[in-house]
């Protein structure tokens, strides 16, 4: 089949010449053969896993959240160039948008629902590992649901045989009920011949918390979207993304924090390195909805450019319809600073080694937040092989 879809819509469109309003996935002659998620491993007690759940049942899970979002809609006009209406049909708004849902539905991909029961604190991480062989084209869907006052950690790791061709498309939806916490870690170390997309949509209720850590290290072309709806009072979204793009890798991302509730908090950190002819498009949006009084949002992007042939697109958006908020965005983009280089050199580290050290430092600063030593070691090894 051919696959053609528009994803990663910027929540508020801007000039067309910036070519950042959305991105197109256009693949010819792919043969999607596997649409089942691998079994989650290391499932602690109190956590249940239900496989092959239909969209109708997933919709039921999110119904209460959907109603709550609706009740908060004050019918006010959106931003100029609003793309919110494009994705209205989604069960829950995701970063990449409705066309991922449509594809999954068309390919009859069923969800694996992982649920932490009320009050269950599952401290040990659950692992879901996709290991692709040459030619594999796989789609997968998960729902992670943390019931009231529970906590759950899920680590998803994607790798493949070296030089393996193929496609891996993932959709993960998150529901953190009152007082609950979801830690989601995604580590992508696919071969550079892989095409990869990964879509996240989340809902956070009162006092609940979603923490996402993403390491994008492999794949030739990657699309990544993440939209978290901060629905409840005092809900929190923390995100840390580390990426390393080299050769002709492309990385297209769309992060959105929809802040509906009072006193919500979002913190997003993006730390990346571009080498060779790598191309990256970053969209990051803080959206303070009417009624989100007392909310704060912070988005920090830090990109190291280490080749004259890279392309770096950045669109950091802040949308605001509420007076009592504090939103910030900062971006630093450029090569290794003179002061950094001088300090390193004064300790005998030459320019080339200093660059490698700084690449490792950036990746390491995100990777070490992952609560699994073995994966950190695998990431370190992967980076060492690259460098």
């Amino acid at each position, binding site marked *: 089949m051919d696959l053609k879809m528009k994803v990663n819509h*910027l929540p*508020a*469109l*801007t*000039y*067309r*010449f*910036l*070519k*950042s*309003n959305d991105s197109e996935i256009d693949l010819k002659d792919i043969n999607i053969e596997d649409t089942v998620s691998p079994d989650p491993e290391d499932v602690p007690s109190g956590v249940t896993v239900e496989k092959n759940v239909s969209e109708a049942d997933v919709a039921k899970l999110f119904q209460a959240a959907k109603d709550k979002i609706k009740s908060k809609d004050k019918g*006010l*006009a959106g*931003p*100029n*160039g609003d793309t919110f209406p494009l994705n209205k049909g989604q069960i829950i708004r995701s970063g990449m948008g409705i066309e991922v849902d449509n594809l999954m539905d068309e390919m009859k991909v069923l969800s694996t629902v992982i649920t932490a029961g009320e009050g269950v604190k599952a401290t040990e991480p659950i692992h879901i590992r996709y290991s692709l062989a040459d030619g594999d084209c796989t789609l997968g869907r998960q729902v992670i649901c943390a019931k009231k006052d529970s906590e759950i950690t899920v680590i998803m790791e994607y790798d493949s045989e070296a030089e393996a061709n193929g496609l891996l498309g993932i959709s993960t939806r998150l529901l953190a009920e009152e007082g609950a916490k979801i830690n989601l870690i995604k580590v992508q170390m696919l071969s550079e011949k892989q095409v990869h997309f990964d879509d996240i949509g989340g809902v956070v209720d009162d006092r609940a918390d979603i923490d996402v850590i993403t390491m994008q290290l492999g794949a030739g072309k990657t699309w990544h979207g993440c939209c978290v709806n901060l629905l409840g009072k005092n809900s929190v979204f923390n995100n840390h993304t580390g990426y390393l793009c080299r050769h002709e890798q492309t990385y297209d991302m769309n992060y959105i924090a929809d802040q509906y509730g009072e006193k919500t908090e979002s913190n997003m950190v993006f730390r990346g390195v*571009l080498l060779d002819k790598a191309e990256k498009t970053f969209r990051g949006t803080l959206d*303070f909805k*009417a009624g989100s*009084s007392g909310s704060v949002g912070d988005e920090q992007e830090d990109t190291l*450019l*280490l*080749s*004259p*042939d*890279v*392309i*770096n*697109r*950045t*669109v*950091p*958006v*802040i*949308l*605001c*319809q*509420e*007076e*009592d*908020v*504090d*939103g*910030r*965005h*900062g*971006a*630093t*983009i*450029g*090569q290794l600073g003179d002061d950094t280089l001088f300090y390193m050199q004064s300790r005998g580290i030459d320019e080339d080694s200093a660059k490698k050290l700084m690449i490792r430092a950036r990746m390491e600063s995100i990777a070490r937040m992952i609560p699994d030593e073995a994966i950190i070691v695998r990431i370190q090894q992967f980076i060492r092989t690259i460098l």
Partner: protein
Amino acid sequence: MSDNNKTVVDIDRSVYDIKDVENEQDFYRMEDGFTEDIVRKISEEKHDPEWMKEFRLNSLKLYNELEMPDWGPDTDELDMNLISSYVRSKTDMKGKWEDVPEDIKNTFERLGIPEAERESLAGVGAQYDSELVYHNVKDEVADQGVVYTDMESALTGEYADMVHEYFMKLVPPTDHKYAALHGAVWSGGSFVYVPKGVKVDIPLQSYFRLNAAGAGQFEHTLIIVDEGADLHFIEGCSAPKYNVANLHAGCVELFVKKNARLRYSTIENWSKNMYNLNTKRALVEEGARMEWVSGSFGSHTSYLYPMTILKGDHSTMEYTGITFAGKGQNLDTGAKVVHQGKYTSSLISTKSISKSGGIGTYRSSVIINKEAKHAKTSVSCDSLMLDSISRADTIPGMDIRTDDADVGHEAKIGRISDEAVFYLMSRGLSEEDARAMIVSGFANPVSKELPLEYAVEMNNLIKLEMSGG
């Protein structure tokens, strides 16, 4: 904090809103809409050279082909069939203020225009609806070889070739729908040429007044600052409020030659029925500097993003802007910059205030091309929300194509902090004054870039906004 103090009122615009009843015999008004027939008539009326007539007709074709942007404020309520492209007073342009017809003169005098000239300007141009009614340059400035004239005279006069060479080369009609429209029906505006090495110490000023209801103003400003020269150009805009839409689709083309400097200041205070779809662009050569100071207060809807092309090595630009979006306004403003030359630098700093249901959008683009080694850019945009029925959005885009660039970006959105208000009140200020002082302080980086009389006007506008009464 009491709700009472959060209510903010509309600016007292009475001085701008005084309309002159246009006596039909005194004015020539083109029928509404934009057709080939109308464009031909305008061309005839203006005694265009042949190339300009062709240019207009080609532009009109483009206008009909091009689509509206899908990203900006809604323009559905702007019915182009109800806009008159050309309204002219049946008077020739005057070189002496006394000769300007009484009613027009009254309008400008109420706005303080000739007064400003007497005090601190090197030259003044005043456009009333579609044509310039007054143009004057101080002798000592003219003696330096500085040319400041209306576009029509420039088109056929001594500088005809220069105009032909530069006209809509920087903003081609293909650029977007309203640039095409401008190309088809443009009228009025100023031509400025500052010869090599000439430094004009005091500013030149153009003032645009759109008086006729349902009319469009399409003035064209072309400024060439030759090598090593220096100029400050100020433009002011206003219109009385009508219940029908007015349209402003002007075009400003600025050429800043090697080692020259141009500062272009705008205070835009169109009435709130105006669709301000204006295009401004500067081409900056080696070692030259472009400075923009931009205050957007008026209009119903604005699309305004002055663009700077840093073509020459070591060229620089600085953009300082403020936008004040009040009730019923959707002001989408910002800046664009393209770094082409090496060692180029840009600094964009904007402030945006939203209140009473107004929508303020900061939108920008920074492009650093592969050849622009050692480019440096810094963008900082702050938004202030004065209530919870307004919108303040920030949509900056960047496209960086070289590693050898230093890119910094900062955006902040927030409110007036209760602590700051409390602090000032503890020193004896009323809450109202405290809030006004904080907003003035917020706008200060912009007002300090304006000529004094404009800074004073801006601060008065802010005080009026904040006084609640």
